[in-house]
């Protein structure tokens, strides 16, 4: 683009720039402005209404010494790791299976992707019913004849996160599968032909050739899934409302609870700032890899 200069750079493509102004303003004011405002007020002792009375890092001290917050962080960490591993592994395996040039591929793809069309609220409610011991899986199995069968994950603090995980995976795996399938279709046929000529088994081709080539797809999936995990909220509200006790509390619920129910904005802002930080920890390395490393591309 080292052409001859044509007037000021600012006025090049003026129409496009003017057209982008509303979106840029929205982003700057609503997203960036709102974020900065929240971070600023997280250092105040605001209660029901925002007030600029600074108290230093007191809100953060209280946050990190709060058992509920710490429990929420651990719950999310557990859910997040399990969810990441399972959605990506299962999504990839399903995509590979679909990629075997099977019949009715479209039908299978649609079925797999359908849960993703449901909101987390619906997913949570449906799975709350399915896992309910009085009318769900347990009751069905008992009616078949296994009288002592017990399956009640949602009412036991030790297993409730698995109950959430089942619902989360059911909802999200189809989407991951589609991303992976798109990645698989992007692999050149010639690669497969070459591998076949060299006599490499199919599974080895997938692991040593195809997966490394799908790195961008995996990165994108990772970021989408991870960002979704950090803001996990509606699924938990619908399925368990954080219970039993606080066994399935997540950070976003803590933020809501302190901003609105407890009328302690400062505490809620501090918690949401910590959530922002964790999103940044996920996003920044990805952005660096995707956009910063163009030299390798």
């Amino acid at each position, binding site marked *: 683009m080292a052409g001859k200069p044509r007037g000021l750079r600012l006025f090049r493509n003026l129409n496009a720039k003017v057209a982008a102004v509303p979106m840029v303003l929205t982003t700057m004011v609503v997203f960036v402005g709102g974020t900065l405002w929240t971070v600023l007020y997280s250092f105040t002792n605001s209660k029901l209404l925002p007030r600029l009375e600074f108290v230093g890092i007191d809100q953060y001290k209280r946050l990190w010494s709060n*058992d509920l917050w710490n429990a929420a962080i651990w719950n999310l960490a557990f859910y997040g790791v399990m969810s990441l591993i399972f959605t990506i592994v299962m999504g990839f395996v399903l995509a590979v299976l679909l990629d075997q040039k099977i019949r009715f591929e479209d039908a299978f793809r649609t079925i797999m992707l359908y849960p993703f069309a449901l909101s987390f609220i619906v997913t949570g409610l449906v799975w709350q019913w399915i896992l309910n011991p009085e009318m769900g899986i347990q009751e069905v199995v008992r009616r078949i004849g296994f009288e002592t069968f017990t399956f009640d994950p949602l*009412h036991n*603090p030790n297993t409730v996160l698995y109950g959430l995980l089942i619902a989360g995976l059911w909802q999200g795996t189809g989407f991951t599968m589609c991303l992976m399938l798109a990645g698989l279709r992007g692999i050149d046929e010639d690669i497969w032909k070459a591998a076949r000529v060299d006599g490499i088994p199919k599974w080895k081709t997938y692991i040593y050739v195809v997966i490394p080539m799908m790195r961008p797809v995996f990165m994108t999936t990772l970021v989408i899934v991870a960002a979704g995990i950090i803001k996990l909220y509606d699924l938990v509200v619908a399925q368990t409302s954080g219970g039993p006790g*606080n066994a399935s509390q997540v950070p976003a619920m803590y933020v809501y609870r302190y901003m609105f129910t*407890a009328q302690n904005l400062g505490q809620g802002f501090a918690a949401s700032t910590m959530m922002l930080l964790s999103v940044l920890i996920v996003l920044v390395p990805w952005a660096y890899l995707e956009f910063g490393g163009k030299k390798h591309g």
Partner: protein
Amino acid sequence: MKNWKLAAGLLLSVALPSGANATDLEVTHWWTSGGEAAAVAELAKAFDASGDHWVDGAIAGGGDTARPVMIARITGGDPMGATQFNHGQQALELVQAGLMLDLTDVAEAQKWRDVINPISLLDGCTIDGKVYCAPMNIHSPEWLWINNKIYEDLGIPIPTNWTEFVASAPQVEAAGKIPLALGRQAWQSNLAFNAIAVGIGGLDLWKKVNVDKDMEAAAGPEMLKVFQASADARKLASKSTVQDWNQATNMVITGEAAGQIMGDWAQGEFAVAGKVAGKDYTCLPGLGLNAYLSTGGDAFYFPKLADPEKEAAQKRLAALLVSPDVQVAFNLKKGSLPIRGDIDMSAANDCMKKGLEILKSGNVVPAGDQVWSPDVQTQLGDMQSEFWSGDMTPEDAQARYVEILKTGL
């Protein structure tokens, strides 16, 4: 000329009545269970009969869900005509920010200070000498509700206090019933704990911890006993998995569970189900141990509106809510106690009469919502919720209890 007069006459006939009366007021509240909805219908009926129009804005899901919506509407510039809050600190900052209508003139005209009993309810509405809310009813959370039939079937006497209730629990459990119904929401765990604190710990301890805010008493051995009693109670409730309080009450009504610790509003549910106090169910204020009740309650706040006509209607509604007839009709349906001592509650049932007597004798303490901020109440709820559904030791729970109370000093 004739036409003009006719037109003017017609115009007046339309404009005058509507100018003086018939204003729509939207009222938001979280009274959605069967008994509560029946009580609200009484308010709407009375307000409509007085010539204005009650636009019902019920928000389901309980106070913890409803209050954020109400506050968001008031602070967001879309205020309703009137809204329910609990007495005390929930709306304090909204008043301080000048978002609420000053009702002092109504209060003086209606002589609220002379008729409202206990007067602490009006004090809860008064900030800097001005009245900002109309007290509606008295809540006393420290009640134990018992299904009589379960005990009759078992052939054992119906418990008359918490100690007997706990002692009879093994037999109830052996009969395949759940001894104690408990909804799994934070505030219900907190309520059960506070009821046990008043019942087992007694009045002096309650006042020391919650009114004088004596942290040594909160960390002391007397309070530990309360936590131990709660740890016993949570074993009785371990099989109760419902969420909402009225689902838990329903377990007692249908005989699935033997008892529930819940506020006097549970009575509305028994009434809707056609149960008779004393015959089908027993109520024990103060858990039958200490005949003390803490008196919080509901009050209506009136956000400031720009329209002077609506403001007049708001003041009419405020006066109406406290008026004797409405108080009787509303509280009989809801099962809560009226806020004035000078009205005829002879239609009240056994349970309400027990409550009225305690009220008359003055054995009342302020409720948690009046002495602690929502921030502290929320933290307590979170802590109690974990304690009641997990295996936290009473000692650990007490240590955390004290830490939380300290954030509210």
